């Protein structure tokens, strides 16, 4: 049943996906409103789907697909939060496709939850997943914002007459969205990694730093920290910040993908 709701949500997110592609080339107030409503409706279905999963009792996020579904939902919540504050749908250009992709994969089929069998501290595991996913969602938004910043900067520099009217918010607003997401995400990411370590230690007795999952996670965290630091210390933005954000994002993707190679972070028999 949960999967059915998720597929409804997916259909709604599809409109967001179309918006993401159209918004880059033309500005339409009507379409951004449609996309926003579709996304909200999608979130309702998505929420129902997640609630059903939650009520089924286990720490159900600990399956790759359920995790993806949760991450998509959190990213969407982040998007809505930004919309509430800044009244702009433009981060959707980056967020919508990623959310659609995550939801699409999650909606393919149901997976058995295997990881929890090895873990004794289920509370820690749940905290780990939640925290790290919020960190991921923040990183995604920050990454999106840095791309939008580049785009807006280029438009302003190109001095094209069309640049006066565009779907992009002001440069400093994009910058703020990116920076605030970064700041907000950092403690979650840090705590997420710490709780993850606790879970790993409790399951295996030690932390294997040579494990690809842990190595990449640490790398991602270091890049994240460098981003926060350079931004705070010397106000890096624009090209340099986008470069770092891309690097952090790729590291995060790699850390995610490492689930498939890691000995300790195996969700399912995937």
């Amino acid at each position, binding site marked *: 049943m949960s999967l059915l709701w998720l597929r409804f949500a997916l259909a709604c997110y599809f409109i967001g996906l179309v918006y993401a592609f159209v918004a880059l080339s033309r500005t339409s107030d009507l379409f951004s409103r449609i996309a926003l409503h579709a996304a909200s409706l999608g979130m309702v279905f998505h929420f129902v789907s997640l609630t059903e999963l939650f009520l089924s009792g286990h720490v159900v996020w600990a399956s790759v697909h359920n995790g993806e579904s949760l991450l998509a939902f959190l990213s969407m919540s982040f998007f809505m939060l930004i919309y509430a504050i800044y009244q702009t749908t433009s981060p959707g250009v980056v967020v919508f496709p990623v959310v659609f992709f995550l939801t699409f994969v999650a909606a393919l089929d149901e997976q058995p939850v295997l990881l929890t069998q090895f873990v004794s501290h289920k509370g820690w595991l749940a905290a780990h997943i939640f925290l790290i996913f919020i960190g991921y969602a923040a990183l995604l938004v920050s990454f999106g914002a840095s791309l939008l910043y580049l785009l807006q900067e280029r438009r302003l520099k190109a001095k094209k007459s069309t640049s006066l009217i565009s779907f992009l918010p002001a440069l400093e607003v994009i910058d703020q969205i990116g920076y605030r997401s970064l700041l907000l995400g950092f403690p979650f990411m840090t705590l997420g990694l710490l709780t993850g370590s606790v879970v790993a230690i409790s399951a295996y007795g030690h932390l294997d730093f040579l494990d690809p999952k842990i190595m990449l996670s640490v790398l991602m965290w270091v890049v994240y920290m460098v981003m926060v630091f350079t931004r705070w210390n010397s106000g890096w*933005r*624009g090209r340099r910040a986008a470069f770092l954000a891309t690097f952090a994002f790729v590291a995060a993707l790699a850390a995610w993908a490492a689930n498939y190679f890691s000995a300790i972070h195996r969700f399912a028999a995937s």
Partner: protein
Amino acid sequence: MRFQLIGVNHKSAPLEVRERLAIPESRLPDTCRDLNNYPGIEEAMVISTCNRVEIVAHTTNGHADLRGFLYDHFHLKPEELDAHLYEFREKDAVRHLFRVASSLDSMVVGEAQILGQVKEAYATARAVGAVRGQLDQLFSRAFAVAKRVRTETAVGSSSVSIASVAVELAKKIFGTLEGKTVFIVGAGKMSELAARHLMAHGCASIFVANRTYERAIGLAQRFNGQAIKFDDLYNTCDRADIVITSTGSPHAIFRREHGEQFLSRRKNRPMFFIDIAVPRDVSPEMGKLDGIFTYDIDDLQQAVSSHVADRHKEAELAEAIITSEVERFEARLHTLDVVPTIVSLQDHLETIRQAEIDRVRGRMGQLTPEQEIAIEALTRGIINKVMHTPITTLKTAAKESEATTVVDVVRRLFNLHDKAEAPPEKKNEVGMRP
């Protein structure tokens, strides 16, 4: 009508060329004087704005070498300039001037500033005596036409000035302008206007730097801002988010190294440079830095013109007005040509009438006042009847090309040679009659 007009504008010449032709306000009177001493020119004046440099002249034979004047005055070779020049004569020159004054030739069709600029140029030229008769009439008419276009069409209704575009661009960069700081470098009307717009949209504080410190103080006081010594410009500039620069400096005063300095001191927070100076104050190299956004006058105007595509319809209406006004002006000028003839014709006949009355009065003896009036009315009536057809013919002919022929014939018939050679001052007085 021997008007000539030559010049460059934003359509015909790039900023680089206009920069070389631009005449600073302070040198405008001298240029006007030089121009009026140039062979073949009766009266002439210069319109020099950031978008155009034009010479309008009334010449002795309609073929004065205005190009030659430009080459000499700006020390330019013909091949550097010719490709960008346009030249109009007579009716076309009148039409062009009307279009310029009515802001139809502006980059931003309908913007209001150009009329003020033309008026200023006219006042300057008038002050040095460069504008007297024909040109005076031409410009008075041009101002009237501009007014008519403004009131009868909507061309200027949504007039988007450079200043308001600057505000919009600033908002594209900063989002809100609340609490932002503005720096005016080089006190000038346009920068003051832009600053006023920015302040109205929330900018909080303002700095002013000017080569003449007193002027900086004056402007700063008007804005409740702070005057900065020009030498301290580079040390304080990084405190401003928006810099409006319009100095008369022949070289860029903001260069790449300055930009780098500002950015490092500002922790890379973006800066917006509005460069309305010609020649430009901000080097293009500096504009390439991340976080520095420079808009020069052409960029601003391009941004403006994207707003105003829908003015085209109104512009067509305005063009129709211009066409009819050019016809009217032409006709009026011709009529002016016949007016002296009509006046001398009337004078001539009046003299004859008076002489005849005086001659017969002696023979008729004492007349009653009623009889006096009757004779007066009778003689006047005859003259008016006789005069009616020639005068109407003259007036009709005035609107056509045969005016001179008709005038000649009338003069010869009535032997008006002497009076037709009336001095130009008198002609103009007649011309001033409505």
